[in-house]
């Protein structure tokens, strides 16, 4: 089977983000494979190990996203596709149309894995839009996956200690989250091997995708940290008594 994994090139979650000009940010930070997409790569690799076939990493991003394609290939996957764009931001709707076109042009998918959300823009919707574009079923926040006889069964965490067990026909889109598998951190030989794996570079413009433009970023602002914490001194009993009093009377968050 041919299995695609959508991987986004995102700033390291620990990086200090500086907003520039009200709608952009200082891009001179370290970029990484979107953390959730690592679980997607792991699951795709396991599936192909069992069923045979190949895993293809697909990334839409600036030319610099090649580092992320290589990093993804070091975790797993046989080859990559980098769809290059000059745009700093491509909205989810357009991203999904571009991913669809690139996957179809490459031969079409027997399965698609992605992350449940991008760690930078946290849109949480590309999986759904991609699935709808391809007429496939979709489930995200997936923590369990199995495939047998053209049917996929996933488990999805829904809060309150509950999990939905969902059955889908394949091909489908699966949005991975933490818990799906243990991320295998690549070793030096994996990194060396990844450098030799073929990566097809295509120009986003050449895919001639016509997106509606459903989102406009109006403003981007830094969130100030809280400062000036009130430190409660004294013995443990004194400190907790003061805390309870403050939570009730000053902060008014307790009855």
């Amino acid at each position, binding site marked *: 089977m041919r299995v695609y994994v959508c991987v986004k090139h995102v700033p390291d979650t620990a990086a200090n983000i500086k907003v520039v000009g009200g709608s952009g940010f200082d891009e001179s930070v370290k970029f990484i494979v979107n953390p959730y997409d690592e679980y997607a790569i792991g699951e795709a690799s396991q599936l192909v190990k069992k069923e045979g076939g190949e895993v293809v990493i697909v990334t839409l991003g600036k030319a610099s996203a090649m580092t992320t394609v290589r990093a993804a290939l070091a975790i797993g996957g046989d080859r990559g596709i980098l769809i290059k764009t000059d745009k700093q931001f491509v909205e989810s709707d357009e991203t999904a149309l571009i991913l669809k076109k690139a996957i179809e042009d490459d031969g079409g998918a027997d399965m698609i894995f992605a992350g449940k959300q991008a760690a930078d823009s946290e849109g949480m919707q590309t999986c759904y839009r991609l699935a709808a574009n391809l007429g496939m079923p979709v489930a995200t926040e997936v923590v369990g996956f199995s495939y047998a006889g053209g049917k996929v069964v996933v488990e999805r965490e829904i809060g309150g200690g509950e999990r939905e067990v969902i059955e889908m026909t394949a091909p489908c889109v699966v949005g991975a989250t933490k818990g799906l598998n243990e991320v295998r951190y690549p070793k030096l030989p994996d990194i060396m091997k990844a450098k030799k794996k073929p990566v097809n570079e295509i120009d986003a413009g050449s895919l001639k995708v016509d997106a509606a433009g459903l989102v406009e970023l109006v403003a981007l602002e830094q*969130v100030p940290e809280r400062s000036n914490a009130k430190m409660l001194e004294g013995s443990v009993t004194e400190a907790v008594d003061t805390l309870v009093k403050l939570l009730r009377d000053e902060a008014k968050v307790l009855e």
Partner: protein
Amino acid sequence: MARIGVLIETNENSVKPANFGVLTAARGAGNEICAFVLEGDATAFQDDLKTYGVSKVIAVGSNDGDFSKKPDLQAASLVAAMKNFEITALLALSSSRGKDLLARMAAATNSGLGLDCIGVDLEAGTCVKTYFAGKTEATLKLSGDLFLCAIRPNAIEETEAPCDIAAEAFTADAADDGKLVIKEVKTSDSGKVDLSEANVIVTGGRPIGSKDNFSILEECANAMGGAVGASRVAVDSGFASHAMQVGQTGKIVSPKLYIGCGLSGSVQHFAGMKTSKVIVAINNDKDAPIFTKCDYGIVGDLFEVVPALTAALKK
């Protein structure tokens, strides 16, 4: 004034309290609110909903049969309901189900979608959400067929606005393609308060040291009717289940009160709880970074401070 739809999350025959903040957001400066429920009889929810300004509650069903196990059919039926009741903006709770349904609706139509939003301006057609793990806030203007926005639980404080309410049922003309079905819902930690909807959360980090030690946090949380969370280190060390993890790769929460016990204050943890109304830190290192981003701090051993706090709460 516009007519705004709100998708209500129900629990058997009651409305989950986390919906009330969403209703408050939908009301804005006096919008007319239509609430949509996907299970049960609309009349069962009238009393809960009219307190928050809902003038009509509509129980949605489909002529393709029971859709409780078919999220795509639920989404298609909601899209049909929007059209029928001439509604172009729908808000929902940003829970797993709320996010999933709105995303299915957005993908099935041609609509802008904001999930996990912490604010919304219906007149301007904008929503506010965090970008880069809570480090920035973005204001997005959405366009397209429908304006779809899911609000982070507890992000908007509820206010009452009683009014008269009517109830009706709507059967959508929609069909399912049979490609996806929910087979069952498994419960592991039944009876526990859903973290993302809890008003108070007490969280344990690395120094908790074992699964059993979480009981001291549970006692403290119980004294406030709250829930217990865990840092990723505590989860990865096997002290807590993944469902309890707060943070970028766990649950996003926004309770009124968040008490972090033995947390260093990592960026990724804060990505999941930064918008809590009040943050309390208990840490034995006076230089721990968490003390630079909380509201109240106690320097001390959590194994002494937390039980003392539980006792003080019970006084």
